Each structure stands twice: as C-alpha cells, then as structure tokens.
C-alpha cells in the first residue's frame, strides 16, 4: 500500500518512533475461546508490527458481525460500521486519504450476502486496501443462521434441515469481476500462512481480497476440523510470486505450483475440489486503481476562490 503523505502536510514519515505488538493491542477480544478470529487478529498485529505502520495512519473499517468487532481490538483508527457496508466506508477513507493504510474486515454474511453489491464493485474499483473476509460459513453474531458460504446440508437456525443450496464460492466470484487484482485464501489455523498471505496482500497495490477460513467452535465446529487435523486435506499454491511461509513446508506436503498471473488457471483452481487450496490465486499489479485515476491535487482556499470567481463569470449578469 502507498505510504506517501504528499497530500497532507504531516511529517510522520521520517519520525523515529517504533512500535511493538503491544502498541497495536486494543480492548480485550470478546470472541469465544477457540474462535479463529483470535489467530487472525494476532497475525494482523504481527503485520502491523513488522511493517511498523504508525497506528494513527492505519484504519480498520468493518461491518457488523463477530468478525467485525476487529477494530475494537486494535489501537489504530477504527470504524465499526454497519452490516455489509465496510467497503463503501473504506473506499471513502482511501479516496480522501491515500496516505492512510486501509484495511476492511468483514464476515462472510457481511461481505457475500448483504454486502455483495459493494464487494463486487470494490473489486472493480481496485482501491488500494486489504480486504479480509473472515469466513466461518455461518452468521456468528446473530447466533447461527445460514450464510452464503455455509456448506450445503449444514443445519442452522433458519435452515434447520440443512442449508438448501451449494455454497457460494467467494474466490470464484471475486475472480469473475473485471479488474480484480489480488485474490488469496488462507486459514486461521495456520498463523504463519495467514501472516504471509496478508503481508502479500498488504504489499500488493490495489484491492487485495483475502478469504480466511475461520473456525467458529460455537456454530460450525465441524467445518474445518478434518482439515485442521489432516494437513493432507490442504493443498498449498506455491510460486516464487506467491505466498512464502517456509515453516509450513514440512507440514503441508501437497504443494502445487501456480503462477498468480494465470487467471484462467486461478479460476479453475478456485473451483470446489476435495481439498482446501490456500495461497494466491491471482495477482495483477498492473490493474488500474480507482483512487489513482481520480487523484486530485489539493487546492488552497484562495485557489478555489479564484477559480470559482472565474466560474461565476460565465454566469454573470
């Protein structure tokens, strides 16, 4: 993400401060014990620390859901918005303030159900931010309703006989959107991989969509249990341009070379399959970024007045 601050007269760039993990910690997380969100938060804190992002120049925007409590648990700027609408808010922030590091944190219901329209369009705008979708395959906060990513047959309070439809594949959907520039998947139970993936997302200039498979012991306890226990159920997408988490090499033996430039293959790999694939499905640094296309020089009050007076001339009596 862009860190230049040309546009505002601030001078934090050359400051001498440095931050530790603790500096980024916020309120004590109130997620259930064993909730995958804890690990994701830790990975994000690690990223902030590694990249030494000034807390005041970092903004986490979220929707509503268990996952969307995220910003409260960090000491950065945060905006816990409304359900499904994290992305428009985050877009507004970044459009106005390209100097800020913007993260959007969403749940699967938040992003793929009520927020679906914004999601599609955020992918298309390709505004530089990291979008994390914490996918537990269920509505957590509202206590167990089917989400678009709930596996078919999995019962919930609104579909007690099991989810009716096959789940929506958020990767395929994202990859279907023109101007998509970064699509990756990781899983909460592999902190090193989560870290490496969001680090790659952060480095990517554009809208980086990361789906994080997230355990919800409360409502979808069985969803990833097998995959957690059996590393063979996971296939790692690897590539020199991909996610680098060497410490995982030993555990996860299923490795498949995939060049993130290959969109057709990325789409193909995103399709359901008997294993869970993690890594970068697609990346294209050359896609146009909306905030860059729209970037404007800031004008002084007097410049504005002069220009407006000129405009008045056209309409003068």
């Amino acid at each position, binding site marked *: 993400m862009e860190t230049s601050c040309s546009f505002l007269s601030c001078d934090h760039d050359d400051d001498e401060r440095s931050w530790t993990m603790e500096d980024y910690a916020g309120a004590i997380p109130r997620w259930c014990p064993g909730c995958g969100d804890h690990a994701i938060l830790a990975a994000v804190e690690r990223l902030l620390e590694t990249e030494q992002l000034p807390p005041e120049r970092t903004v986490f925007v979220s929707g509503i859901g268990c996952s969307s409590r995220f910003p409260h648990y960090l000491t950065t700027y945060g905006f816990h918005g409304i359900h499904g609408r994290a*992305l428009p*808010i985050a*877009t*507004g922030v970044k459009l106005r303030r390209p100097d800020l590091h913007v993260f959007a944190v969403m749940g699967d219901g938040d992003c793929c159900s009520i927020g679906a329209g914004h999601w599609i369009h955020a992918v298309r705008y390709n505004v530089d931010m990291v979008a994390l979708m914490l996918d537990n395959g269920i509505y957590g906060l509202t206590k167990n309703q089917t989400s678009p990513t709930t596996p078919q047959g999995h019962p919930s309070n609104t579909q007690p006989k099991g989810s009716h439809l096959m789940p929506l594949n958020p990767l395929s959907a994202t990859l279907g959107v023109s101007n998509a520039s970064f699509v990756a998947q990781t899983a909460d139970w592999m902190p090193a991989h989560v870290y490496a993936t969001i680090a790659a997302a952060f480095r990517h200039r554009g809208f980086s969509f990361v789906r994080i498979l997230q355990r919800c012991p409360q409502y979808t306890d069985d969803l990833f249990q097998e995959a957690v226990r059996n590393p063979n159920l996971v296939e790692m997408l690897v590539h020199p341009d991909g996610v680098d988490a060497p410490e995982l090499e030993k555990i996860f033996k299923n490795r498949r070379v995939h060049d993130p430039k290959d969109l057709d293959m990325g789409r193909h790999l995103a399709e359901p399959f008997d294993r869970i694939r993690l890594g970068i499905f697609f990346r294209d640094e050359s896609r146009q970024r909306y905030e860059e296309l729209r970037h404007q020089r800031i004008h002084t009050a007097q410049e504005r007045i002069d220009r*407006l007076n000129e405009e008045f001339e056209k309409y*003068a009596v």
Partner: protein
Amino acid sequence: MSSSSPVVTKKARASKDAAGPVVIRVPEHTVEIVSDSGEGAQKCGQIFGQVSAKMGNGAWTVEIIPAEIQPPARSGPGASGNRIRIGTQPVTNWGDAANLVVAFNEQALLARHELEALHEDAIVLVENRWATHDDDDIRREWTTAMEVLGKQDYRIIPVPMEEQCLTVTDNPRRGKNMFVLGMLAWIYDRDIELIRDAIRQSFRKKAEAVARANIELMELGYRWAEANLDFRVEVPIEKPPTPMIVLNGNQALAMGAVAAGMDLCAMYPITPATSVSHYLGEIFEDFGGIVHQAEDEIAAAGVAIGASYAGKVAFTVTSGPGLALKTEFIGLATMTEVPLVVLDVQRGGPSTGLPTKVEQSDLLAALYGQPGDAPKVVMAPATIEECFHMVVTARRIAELFRCVVMVLTDANLATGVQPFPRPQLDPRWQAAPPDLRPVPEGVKPYDWDPASGLSRRFIPGQPGGMHTLTGLSHDEYSHVGYSPDVHERGCAMRSRKLAVFQTTLKPPGVYGDTKGDLLVVGWGSTKGAIEEAVDRARARGLRVSSLHLRILSPLEPGLKEIFSRFRKVATVEINYSDRLGDPYITRENRRLGQLAWLLRAHTLVDVDCWTRVPGQPLRPKGILEGIESMMPGGHA
C-alpha cells in the same frame, strides 16, 4: 435598451408597416416555449432567460419536463420546454400563466391550454406546418385543436417556422429552437451579442460550425419577426445595484459545495438531483474535488461518510427513492457523529412517483425516517441564492455539531433559473484542511461538553487519537456501552446539540403585518409564489401575512408567539392532504400536510393547510384562492 450589433437590414425593416410595431410596455411578461422533447425548446428558453437576466431584468425560468426520454411526438404529456417570467423587478416564481406562448406544434399548445398555463389574452406563435401536413390525421388534429383554442381570447399567430428554417438548414427539427430564440430576441429587444455568446457557450463542446449555424438560424428568426410581427414587448430594465449571477438551483448547490471547500460528492444518479453531479463533473476537478458515482445510493452515503471521517465533510446528493436507501447510513452518521451533508432534491412520491416533478413530501422522512432517535439538522432553501449559501452553512453546522445536516430542495429549485447577487466568496466558508496535529493527552473521542454535547472529533492521522467509531451505543471513549446510563447519556448528548443550535437561531420574520387574520406558513421553493399571493390578497384587503421556514429541525424559535397573533395559521405545501368535505374525512382522521403536522405538534396551534400535488410549482393565483378559502369565516 440596447441591441449592440444590428443584424437587421434596412430591407427587412422596409417590408413592415411604416407605423412600426405596437410596443406593449409592461412591468413583467411571461413567455412559454413548448416543443416535442428533443426539439430544443428548453435550450431556447434557457438562453432567453439567461440573457434577459444578464441584461438586468428580473427573471425566473422553469423547465417543463416530460416524464420520458422520448415521449411520442406531438403529444400533450410529451411537451417539453420552459416558462420564463421576466420583470423590471426581481421575479420570485413562475407566476400564473403565460402572456406569450411559442409552440412547435398545436398539441403541445393544447396541453398547456388544458393545464391553464395560458393567460386569457395570451399571444400565441405556433408552427403552421401541421395545418397543411400530408398526414390527414395530423391536419385533423390541427383543426380540432384550433377550434378549441379559437374559442378563447388568445391571439393566435401561425408562423412558418420550419419553412423558414429550411432556407438555411436541411434539418429544421434541430434548428427551429434557434429560429424561435431569434423571434423572441426581436420581440423583447434582447441583446443580440449576448445571445450569440450564449449560443457559442452552449455548443462549446461541438464543432465551431454548429454554433455558427445556430447563430444563423437565430438571426433568421430575428429578421422574420421584425419583418412580420406587429408587436413588441418592452419590460423596462432597472440595472440591479450589485453584480448578479444566473444559475439554476442545482448549479447553485454544486457551487455552494465548492465554496464550502468540500471535495467529495458521492452520489448515484437520480432525477432531479443528478444534474448537481453533472455540473460538478465538469468543474469539480479544477478545485481538487471529485464526483464519485457509487454503485448505489447506499454506497454513496457510505463513501461520503468514510471521506468525512477521514478528513473534511463530504456530501451526497439524491432524491426520494435514494433518500430511502440512505436511511440506515444516516443513522450511522448520527450515532457516530461523523459530519455529513445530505442534499435531497425532492420529487413527487411515494415510490418512483413523479420523477421529474416537484413535491415537498420528503420532509417527515428527513426528520423521522431513521429508526431510533436520530436528531439531525434539516434545512431548506427558499430561493436559488439560498441553495448556494445553505450548502456553505450546512457544511459548517455539520462540522461544528458533528451531525448530519440535510438540505431539502426540490425539482422546482433544481431546474429553475434566477439571477441573484453574486456571492462575495470568503475563505472562511471553506473547510479547513485536515488538521493532523497530535491529540492532546486525555482528550476522548467523544469529549462531550456535558451541557452542550459538543466535542471535537479526531481524524485518522492524528497521533494519540486512535479510537474505534461504532454505531453501537457507546461512551465517551467510543467503547461499546453495557449499562443503561451509557445509552441515556449518548442519546442526550446527541439531542442536546440540536437544542444548542436552536438557541443560536433568531425567530423568522413575518412577511406583511405581524398580526392579522391569517398567517400562511411555507417552506422551500414556494416562497416567491406565496408572497406574491399574499401581496395580492392584501391588495384585496385581506389581513394575511406569511412566514417562511428555512430550518425545519430544530424549528426556528418564536413560532408559537408569532402564530398567536393571527386568528388562523395555515401552511401552503406541495404535499398531499385530505380535504374536509371529502367522503369519510373528518376533522379527526384528516391527514394534513407534512409541515402542518410538524407545526401542530410543535406549537399546539390548530394549524390548517392548503396543499396541492399537481406535479408542478404552485401558482400565486392558486395560492390566492387557497388563502381566500381559508380566511377565518371562510369555508375551509
């Protein structure tokens, strides 16, 4: 009176009766130009209005807009055009009826006649080609229409518009409007050079030849009128003391946003609000601003909130159906105290309603539309000038009070064109650039002054100010609240700000005597028409005054006291209300106009109302009838 460069040759003049035309000298005159959609009557009217204003006439231009892109040709509902009312004094509304009508076909004319848009002795210039058209049906329609119109006291003058145009162009449908502009220029003795400029400006995006051809057509119309018409109209000009500019309401809103130093307009297209963004789309980047057309109205509100949160107040602009969609986000901005300006250009409702037509029916939705207690400031400009200045004010209030400010205009203001004193721009009107200085130790994100509820917001980038905004009930630290007190307190702090704002307001002035039999209360675009009606009523000896509200939430002070000095108080609104006397309607179940309802709750005065929803601006004449019907002792 001036006509800088004479285009009129001696020869043309010579062909006229030596006595020259009769000159009708009047303090004001109203012209309507109506055509099929796409024939350009609107452009003709706009230029005529603009040039009249530039010359120093008072002027008010209203667009006559069909509901569709391409209504059928020669159809009444499809009539498109303008009404331009010009006067020696400032003109504040579209008046009652047209004194001069130029019609491109007799069906458009007939429709206007049926809508009572013509003055009883109006002069009518109508394209004559339909009388001899190849199509039997068309000739028959012409004859029938002329029979109806012939029964009136109109003076109808058939004009060979197309025939004339064909002498200089082979596509007269596209040029007729300029021919008509030329006729009007001669009739009203408009400054030809100003007209030429306006034509050039209007076609600036096209090849130069286009402007030239149009100027030629205009000059043709001028000469034709001079050669063939036996009357001219003189509306004397009194140059206004201050420099003036001529804008429509949506341009004024857009320029107001610029003058307020805003630099993000997040919107989704919707009639009649969209032209704010069209105009900004052209100029905003010159000011470092951008128009963001979002994927929908919800996202537009979200982007504006995100941008506001991140620095300077941003705004979103919409109309009824879009406002409905922004409801949830407006609640969030209220709860998080992120300043936000929402411009709502009202149209007819409910639902898709009358997309291009004026109504004032978003008032209660603006005030009360959000679930939960969502106090906000709601304002409404009454003139085009106020459209400009109110956006500046709205931005400042939003910022100072960390609240949502809604500005309600309507389709009448949006497209109406009127000259007003050129604003003397002030740098202090503009939002300061984001201040990124560290937050002083100990300052909380909602450091509410316990009395006023006011606090200073921090924006991202300010060291030491890190906090998380939330739409959940929260305390001073923006921490989610779990105790009853937190919620009570938050609600009080958000509400208190309105009370503080209210105490800074002055009671509104009364137009006319400060006591009497009837006080008419209005808001928004109806001011000019109401005051004209009041003038006429007073001229007839009625003890009527009026009062116009600009701030609807919180209501301006002193209303109850002002109301108490009148025997009766009634609103005039472009809103639906049940009428007493209609089946089933009783004093008890009668649904009143939205403003009347609001004022009743606020003042406990038995405020009556006279309302209409014709999908067009109210006419002074209609309001006058309303006033007469409502005079205490009258039959309302």
